[in-house]
């Protein structure tokens, strides 16, 4: 399971950190195992993700997944990002994932989705 690129993204995560003055700042964790992901992202006037960073702790699958996901969504419009789902994550990871580890893999997607929902609520009401 631990192919090179998974370990690479775990040990040298891309987009790691916290954005200053982000449009959205959201986090979630999996209390069952202690995986935690926090995502901060900047959305521009065209509803595109201008920049995104994640910070977190947890297993290699959860952290690598966050690293891969943030790389994938940078510069993308929210409408496209909202279409991402479980199978896209699994494809990005490129390895077979058991049901238990799937939870680890999908944590960052969950944070991202919830973050987008919060953004849309905020901007619909303004």
């Amino acid at each position, binding site marked *: 399971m*631990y192919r090179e690129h998974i370990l690479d993204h775990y*040990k040298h995560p891309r987009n*790691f950190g916290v954005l200053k003055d982000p449009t959205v700042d959201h986090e979630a964790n999996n209390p069952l*195992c*202690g*995986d935690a992901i926090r995502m901060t992202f900047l959305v521009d006037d065209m509803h595109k993700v201008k920049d995104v960073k994640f910070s977190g*702790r947890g297993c*290699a699958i959860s952290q690598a997944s966050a690293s891969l996901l943030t790389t994938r969504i940078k510069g993308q419009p929210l409408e496209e990002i909202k279409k991402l789902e479980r199978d896209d994550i699994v494809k990005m990871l490129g390895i077979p994932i058991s049901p238990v580890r799937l939870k680890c893999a999908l944590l960052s997607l969950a944070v991202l989705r919830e973050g987008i929902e919060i953004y849309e609520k905020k901007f619909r009401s303004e």
Partner: protein
Amino acid sequence: MLDVARVRKDFPILERKLANGKPLVYLDNAATTQKPAQVLDAMDRYYRETNSNVHRSIHELGERATEMYVQAHEKVAAFIGARSMEEVVFTKNCTEALNLVAYSKGLRELKAGDEVVISQMEHHSNFVPWLEVCRITGATLRIVPLTSDGRFDLDAYQAVLSRKTKLVSVTAMSNVLGTFVPVSEVARRAHEVGAKVLIDGAQSVPHSRTDVQATGEDFMAFSAHKMLGPTGIGVLYGKKEELLAMEPFLFGGEMIGRVTNEGATWNDLPWKFEAGTPVIAEAVGLGAAVDYLTDVGMENLELHEHRLVEHAFQVLGKIPGVRIIGPGPGHRGGLVAVEMEGVHAHDLASILNDQGVAVRAGHHCAQPLMTVLGIASTARASFYLYTTPQEIDAFGAALEKAREVFRLGEGGPGDTPGRGFPRSSAGAHLEDAP
């Protein structure tokens, strides 16, 4: 002396190869145990030859099935030192047995001002029921902390006990730390203040000799599947006078005496607490498991596991970055939960699985304990009578492999868990085991 080679021949599953061709190294016995052919055959034979419903049956099969069902109670009673089979109630599992006391005694008898005492290391099955019982009745839950090396703090326990204490419910052996709790002492002090004592024997009964006359608890719960028996059956031991005084748990057939349109009376012990068609085949299986363990000898088993634990500490002590949580070999039963620096427990368990080594990773149904320890999750290896020192060596080798896969010692941000977030607050960190 325990002849492990001979014992292993009785367990067909231990010979199997896994999907990747590796032999099975089963080190998850605290979660559930494998079954010897004797237990499997007994259950199979029951269904093939004797299957029938029990109690009040006049036909031959029913009488025979009832005999076997009653005999299973008698075997369990003898195994744990109960005075009679009236003190042995069969439930679905240990969790249900603990809940039985929570419902039949806790909910019905406790009120505001009363106190329930548990320990910080309790499994959710002996933690959550009391959270709920106290929330519903208004009673207060008191949690006894651990010592710095993960043992039950008797002094803190004494300080918490008072005439308000109505029930003390603690584990005899922690499923995470392996810690043995001094049950006799806990019971003695509880009785001094007039409190009753419930012991969670899920890990202790399968692994060491149990004698409830010697230890003196009022109730004790355990599961068959953790002691070579089938799933679906557990035991609540209760002193006869306690069970007589309690209201039933579940209501229905078999647990009644006389039923009219106006009301019902209850059956004798233990049937009062066994409503509906019981777990007959499973009881036969549990009886066979008790026979098997009695044959092996619980003292032989204790010695065997102690040697394995000593070996585990030796093997793991040589691997850099591996920390065993809980007390040293002298104060624990046959399990070791480990943290590896730089590798999350889930990743560890996955890599171990690739090597054919089956362990459990996570919070082990003890979230309050893990929070106090400041640990998110650990990988736990747990032993039993068929575990060999070579299997523990395989566990060690697999941990070394994990270091290799994660290229630990090469530096870089991935080496330190907990980056990005402050570590969870609170709690004494356990000192490293000596």
